[in-house]
């Protein structure tokens, strides 16, 4: 790779990875390790498990970079989806060992406001968190429960004691509103 890695588009890096370019994988790691590790850690709440899953996720990126299909989605979405599915798979394994008791204690920390000071440095992250703050509380809560806990709509309804139909509407309205807010504010993101 001749150009500065920071100037190469994600999709080009993924194509280079699919040709077996290790430095492209390293560049993707350097670019996204903070957000992907933050995501995995938020799901698993255990550093050592999260590091293991981060490694698994990048090995999957290495093996499956061929599957990335640019017309059907953004590279960032593809990477985040791999990291999140791996983390939720691991969460399901761990939850059978009652690890969730620990996570439940932290269940109050859904508010995007306390997303951490380091995160505030990322401009992109700030746009997303601002948009999340503009969603009605119930919509945001339903979305984040699905996203970070891997719960289905039915499980969310049970957890919150709300009717299933209400949860479905909130989730749908919430994600559509989030998408529209982000589209208005940054064409670069969506």
């Amino acid at each position, binding site marked *: 790779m001749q150009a500065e890695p920071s100037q190469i588009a994600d999709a080009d890096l993924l194509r280079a990875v699919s040709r*077996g370019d*290790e430095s492209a*994988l390293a560049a993707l*790691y*350097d670019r996204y*390790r*903070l*957000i*992907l*590790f*933050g*995501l995995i*850690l*938020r799901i698993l709440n255990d550093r050592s498990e*999260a*590091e293991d899953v*981060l*490694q698994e996720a*990048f*090995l999957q990126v*290495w093996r499956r970079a*061929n599957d990335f*299909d640019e017309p059907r*989605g*953004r590279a*960032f*979405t593809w990477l*985040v989806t791999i*990291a999140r*599915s791996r983390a*939720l798979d691991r969460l399901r394994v761990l939850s059978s060992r009652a690890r969730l008791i620990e996570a439940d204690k932290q269940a109050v920390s859904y508010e*995007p406001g306390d*997303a*951490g000071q*380091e*995160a505030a440095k*990322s401009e*992109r*992250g700030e746009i*997303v*968190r601002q948009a999340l703050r503009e969603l009605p509380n119930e919509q945001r809560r339903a*979305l*984040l429960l*699905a*996203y*970070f806990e*891997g719960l*289905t*709509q*039915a499980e969310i309804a049970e957890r919150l004691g709300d009717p299933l139909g209400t949860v*479905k509407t909130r*989730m*749908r309205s*919430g*994600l*559509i509103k*989030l*998408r529209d807010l982000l589209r208005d504010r940054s064409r670069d*993101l*969506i």
Partner: protein
Amino acid sequence: MEHAGYSELLAAQAVDALDAAEARAVLAHVESCAECRRELAGLRDAAALLAHAAPLAAPDDDVRARILQAIRGLTESPKVLPLPSSSNGWPNVLRLAAAIAFVALLLGLIVLWRRDAASRRQITEVTRQLNRQQRELQTERENLAQQAAALALLTSADAKKIALAATTTAQNARATFAYDEKSRRGILVIEGLPPTPADKAYQVWVIPKGLAPIPGRTFIISNNGRAIVADNFPLEAGSSSVIAVTLEPKGGSGAPTGAIYLASPAG
């Protein structure tokens, strides 16, 4: 369900909040509906950005090195495992050879250490070779472990086993598929397939009843017509799905396009 009904489920699908049956139905609809496909892609992009709601966190520095070391191991070991040869003595021969090479290299190192500074470069070279040999040995060990895991799955009582029959395309082909629902590990042991043409690859498919085929791994067949394909398979592989192998363009396809070479009977 009509288009409008599916369209209402797309947001939930984008955060994987549908139950398995709903998700399958939505994905099957999306395959045939360009409008829903675009909508789902946009909602998935929005959902992926929810990752920003988690605090950024730095993994330990050695994770990067671990990943790069692991992919070197993957690159050197073929993704499709060759069948173990009938005489199973070779791993020991290999180990012995590696051990002899190891000792020889060590001796070489000692001799070189005694020479003056001009020899340093040679020492570096020998060390590099030694490292490479150790990596190769490690790769070989991982290969053996993978083969052992594959054979364990094939002989496991918990694993579900299905025979795949040849089609008229290649009448001598046959295969066995073993699948463990708990671990989602599956293995396909194949014999008698014709060698893969240069610009093509064989591809594995899981075809749930009445739904779109789910693409699996691609693989290449060399002269002996054999391959073992070990992979994680979707849960559908354990139900009444058909497991099939087709010939596709190199790199694989999203939906089958080529001739069917092997298929399990429809459940």
